[in-house]
């Protein structure tokens, strides 16, 4: 199993003020650079940045290509991932994406991972006038044509449902041929199956258990072998799982330092999610409907909650995503509720390095390709994140990396034996 870091660039508003201090966003980015540069030196394999728009506090990573371009010049080996580029042409024209991905591949020496997606919340889709019912079709068309632009000379032009352009040679071309490894954000289970059928990696954002991961891995690789018709010119078989992360000297200290980071991550995700959000006021009115852009302090709303609400249970119950019985059993059946619940409570990579090693071994046993850590979330302290990256990188990562080469790679080769497509994968 390989490892990476994952960045939303969360920036909760201050609890004792109305908005951020003027230096807060610059500081957040500077700290992120220090974290990723340390991870690069320690041998972490990947860093991924989201692209979200207008989701204040939840995600200030709105221009990941800029962050990745900076990191391309200050890091040596870590692979630079979009997690993901929003592919509806109304947000990013496919030719501009092709130009940016190829340019990033050139300045990074061929280290790009090309994650793709549709966008999710109405807050961001509405900001770019993307019709929710067309977003999957837009993603597919934008992604397929973008990959052609990177790999065909000249690109012969296209007259599609969502964009058209005449024949042009889209330049530059990437170092990685025919194009960098391609991924898709898979919040829903069917998208993992779609990823397999299209021959691309699946970025699992559902905080799956090792047992669920094992089932998903089996099904994914079977579809790759038997029912794949690639969307690109080369396939990138692979699955990653996202996990909450904090390492410290003792389990208690790790939990303390983890603080409400995962809880805030889940709360703010639910706040913005879908059409109405999952967070409601005492009268049952969705908070998102009262959202005042540039003003609303989501962090203060979150901090005022009783502890049992900070882990998301009450809101999920009110949103009818969890029943009283499920709450009692502490695990909802509903898939979206489960993801939010686990995002708030998952502790499998929170603890001492011994605890983390033992917990994540089960993901390795399930043949997970990559585990990506959500280290920077909520109001966590930079120095704690740095220490966690260092502890894990020195104590745990090397042995997993070694087994990746000696155990996982042969297993993967066996899974992919006979697949009749070119493979371009960094796994």
């Amino acid at each position, binding site marked *: 199993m390989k490892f990476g870091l994952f960045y939303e660039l969360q920036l909760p508003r201050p609890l004792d003020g109305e908005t951020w201090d003027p230096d807060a966003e610059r500081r957040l980015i500077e700290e992120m650079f220090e974290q990723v540069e340390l991870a690069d030196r320690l041998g972490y394999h990947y860093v991924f940045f989201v692209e979200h728009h207008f989701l204040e506090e939840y995600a200030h990573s709105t221009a990941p290509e800029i962050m990745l371009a900076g990191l391309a010049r200050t890091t040596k080996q870590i692979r630079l991932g979009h997690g993901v580029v929003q592919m509806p042409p109304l947000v990013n024209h496919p030719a501009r994406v092709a130009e940016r991905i190829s340019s990033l591949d050139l300045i990074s020496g061929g280290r790009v991972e090309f994650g793709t997606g549709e966008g999710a919340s109405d807050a961001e889709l509405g900001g770019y006038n993307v019709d*929710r*019912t*067309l977003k*999957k*079709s837009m*993603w*597919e*068309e934008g992604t397929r044509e973008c990959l052609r632009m990177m790999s065909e000379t000249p690109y012969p032009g296209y007259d599609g*449902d969502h964009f058209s352009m005449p024949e042009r040679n889209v330049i530059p071309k990437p170092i990685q041929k025919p194009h960098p490894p391609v991924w898709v954000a898979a*919040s*829903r*289970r*069917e*998208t993992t*199956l*779609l990823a397999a*059928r*299209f021959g691309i990696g699946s970025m699992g954002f559902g905080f799956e258990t090792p047992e669920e991961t094992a089932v998903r891995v089996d099904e994914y690789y079977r579809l790759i072998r*038997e*029912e794949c*018709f690639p969307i690109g010119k080369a396939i990138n078989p692979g699955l990653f799982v996202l996990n909450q992360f904090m390492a410290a000297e003792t389990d208690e200290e790790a939990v303390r330092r983890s603080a409400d980071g995962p809880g805030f991550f889940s709360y703010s995700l639910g706040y913005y*999610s*879908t*059409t*109405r959000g*999952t967070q409601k006021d005492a009268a049952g009115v*969705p908070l998102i409907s009262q959202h005042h852009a540039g003003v609303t302090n989501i962090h203060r709303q979150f901090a005022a909650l009783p502890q049992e609400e900070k882990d998301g249970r009450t809101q999920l119950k009110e*949103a*009818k*995503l969890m029943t009283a019985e499920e709450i009692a059993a502490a695990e909802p059946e*509903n*898939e*979206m*509720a489960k993801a939010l619940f686990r995002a708030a409570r998952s502790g499998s990579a929170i603890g001492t390095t011994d605890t983390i090693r033992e917990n994540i071994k089960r993901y390795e046993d399930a043949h997970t390709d990559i585990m990506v850590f959500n280290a920077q979330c909520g109001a966590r302290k930079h120095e704690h994140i740095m220490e966690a990256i260092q502890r894990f990188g020195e104590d745990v990562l090397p042995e997993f990396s070694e087994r990746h080469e000696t155990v996982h790679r042969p297993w993967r080769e066996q899974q992919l034996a006979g697949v009749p497509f070119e493979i371009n994968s960094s796994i």
Partner: protein
Amino acid sequence: MARYEQVKDEGVRALLEQATNEMRGGAPAVAVHACCDAFLLLIEQYPDLFEENLPADEKIHHQQFPRFGARLVSVADQPGFEFDRERFSMGEAITYLDFTTDTALKRQG
């Protein structure tokens, strides 16, 4: 073994097989219609699926029958589908197929 082959109900399985073949043959719109027909058959067998999948703002999109141009509706209190457009992409067809197949497999236990 294709995923639809695990579905026990013959009618549902036949429609999912048809959807799979249409998709492979490059006709995603026909595949989407076959998936909708299969889902209506499932609703006949498990009526609670209707209420569970009727689109509503307060429901989470991810958990319901996909809303990519084929909408589950109530016509004279009977379940049916309305189609916003004639063209569907391959990815949309795959999503409808896998959601319907998953629903059938979960319900049959």
